[in-house]
């Protein structure tokens, strides 16, 4: 019996850690949605683009190598150096900030005061553009990302838990690191938004544009800031998922997993994104473990969406979202 219990606990822990990764992606959505009311369809592709850029910089790839070769008939592909991961991460962050500035200059600035659906469509355009741009810049082959994060099953945890409980827990090292990083990220973001000038300005803009202008906040600056932070979150998410399953196109599809998380947690709540991610992570693992065998398995593919659907019916604002009140 305890054997079964420990196994269930292990499944839950693994679910929690998978949930952290979902939460990371959802967090990027929430940040932009809160500050500008835009549902940023491109968030997933931003994670892919960030991961591609990170690998490219680390391995010293020549950007646009295929394009250059095709036009000039050259044979360039690598600079012949490698960049240490910490430096490469910082450089990739720079690229994401540059991307945020360009998005503001070329897209958002021209669509001020347009209906939300127009902005949403613009982010779809951005998603496809960025996907193609990433391919042209870094090539479309599957890449492995090795930023020095630990991989594989943690033997220490296995041994220690075996000594204590007589049952060895199988936990993925990368998942554990991701959990710690995600926790730090969330704490950092929360402190930043609660106790700093820029954070307060960010919350102000999220609340009321007109009032924000009247106290001297530049909306354009805040948009660049929030897209930069979303880019940073995308980089972290891309790094974790990329290290786990390789940097390839399917990385951008993790955005789809973030949707049910958002419906659960609410589109406007940072804690909601975290809790939503954890619930989905644990829920789908436990569901697979308990009900899965009865229905022939593979429940992880649809469990999250069914759960989200139920939420849409019974609590459309999500667990932590702002209550939708229509005053007549």
């Amino acid at each position, binding site marked *: 019996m305890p054997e079964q219990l420990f196994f269930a606990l292990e499944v839950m822990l693994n679910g929690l850690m998978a949930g952290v990764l979902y939460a990371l992606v959802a967090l990027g959505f929430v940040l932009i949605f809160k500050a500008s009311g835009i549902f940023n369809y491109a968030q997933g592709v931003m994670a892919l683009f960030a991961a591609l850029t990170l690998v490219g910089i680390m391995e010293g790839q020549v950007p646009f190598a295929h394009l250059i070769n095709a036009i000039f008939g050259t044979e360039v592909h690598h600079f012949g150096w490698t960049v240490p991961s910490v430096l490469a991460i910082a450089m990739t962050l720079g690229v994401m900030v540059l991307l945020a500035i360009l998005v503001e200059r070329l897209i958002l600035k021209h669509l001020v005061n347009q209906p939300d659906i127009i902005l949403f469509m613009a982010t779809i355009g951005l998603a496809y553009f960025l996907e193609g741009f990433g391919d042209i810049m870094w090539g479309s082959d599957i890449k492995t990302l090795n930023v020095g994060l630990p991989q594989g099953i943690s033997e220490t945890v296995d041994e220690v838990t075996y000594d204590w409980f007589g049952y060895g827990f199988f936990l993925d090292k990368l998942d554990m690191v991701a959990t710690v990083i995600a926790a730090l990220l969330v704490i950092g973001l929360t*402190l930043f938004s609660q106790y700093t*000038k820029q954070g307060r300005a960010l919350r102000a803009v999220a609340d009321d544009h007109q009032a924000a202008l009247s106290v001297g906040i*530049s909306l354009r600056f805040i948009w660049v800031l929030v897209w930069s932070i979303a880019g940073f979150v995308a980089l972290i998410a891309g790094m974790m998922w990329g290290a786990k399953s390789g940097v390839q196109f399917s990385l951008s599809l993790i955005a789809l997993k973030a949707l049910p998380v958002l419906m659960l947690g609410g589109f406007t709540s940072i804690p909601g994104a975290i809790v939503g991610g954890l619930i989905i992570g644990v829920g789908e693992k436990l569901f697979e473990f308990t009900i899965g065998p009865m229905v022939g398995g593979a429940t992880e593919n649809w469990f999250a969406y069914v759960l989200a659907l139920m939420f849409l019916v019974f609590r459309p604002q999500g667990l932590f979202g702002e209550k939708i009140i229509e005053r007549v």
Partner: protein
Amino acid sequence: MLDAGAEGYTTEDGRKIGGVLMEMKNITLRFGGVEAIKDISFDIREGEIRAIIGPNGAGKSSMLNVISGFYVPQQGEVWFRGEKRPQMKPYQVAAQGIARTFQNIALFEGMSVLDNIMTGRLTHMDAGIAAQALWWGKAQREEVANRAKVERVIDFLEIQHIRKTPVARLPYGLKKRVELARALAAEPMLLLLDEPMAGMNVEEKEDMSRFILDVNDEFGTTIALIEHDMGVVMDLSDRVVVMDYGKKIGDGTPDEVRSNQDVIDAYLGVAHD
């Protein structure tokens, strides 16, 4: 009409009013074919309480929006502290030292009263973004110093008891007061109030009038306000601009304005022929 020379003047109750702080010169504002403001000029002097009054749709709020940079007039010049102001965004105007409130209250509903008022200090914080993120050195000192200033404003407007309350939960009258506190926290040179007494009961109106007078008295803040309620305005203000259908029909002390035939006609209604 009251002769407000370059040197300023002394009010009936003996307050010294200084030189011109802000001057509007021949402002015209159009929305499509509609002229909301037609060729209006007036000035606001240091230390005075200046009111803009007029019936509904007279263009008062439009005028306030021109001053605070939310609207850009098609013609005319805005002069501030003796210099012609180039075309500016509202946030740049705010950074120049002009704070405002809104007719239909624009507060950050999801934030606490304290946080709302702290946003009023944004233009006074200039620590770099990296220092902000790390809450280190200058950023931390600034935060503490600004917090102290904000506490003074909170004391002054007697809203200590709701410091931590989310704004969304407050009744209307208190929201108006919090909005005033936020504008005041910016330590503005010019404070613009858009119908500060709108929708209030008699008691709340009296409180608000007292606060407006106290602000002017204690901090020497120049105040320009729009108001519907003639009685309140006449008691509060030093000089009054009267607008009707986008035009200026009167300008002077409350007594002068009260006896101006055009003003009486605009307010009581008269057959135009």
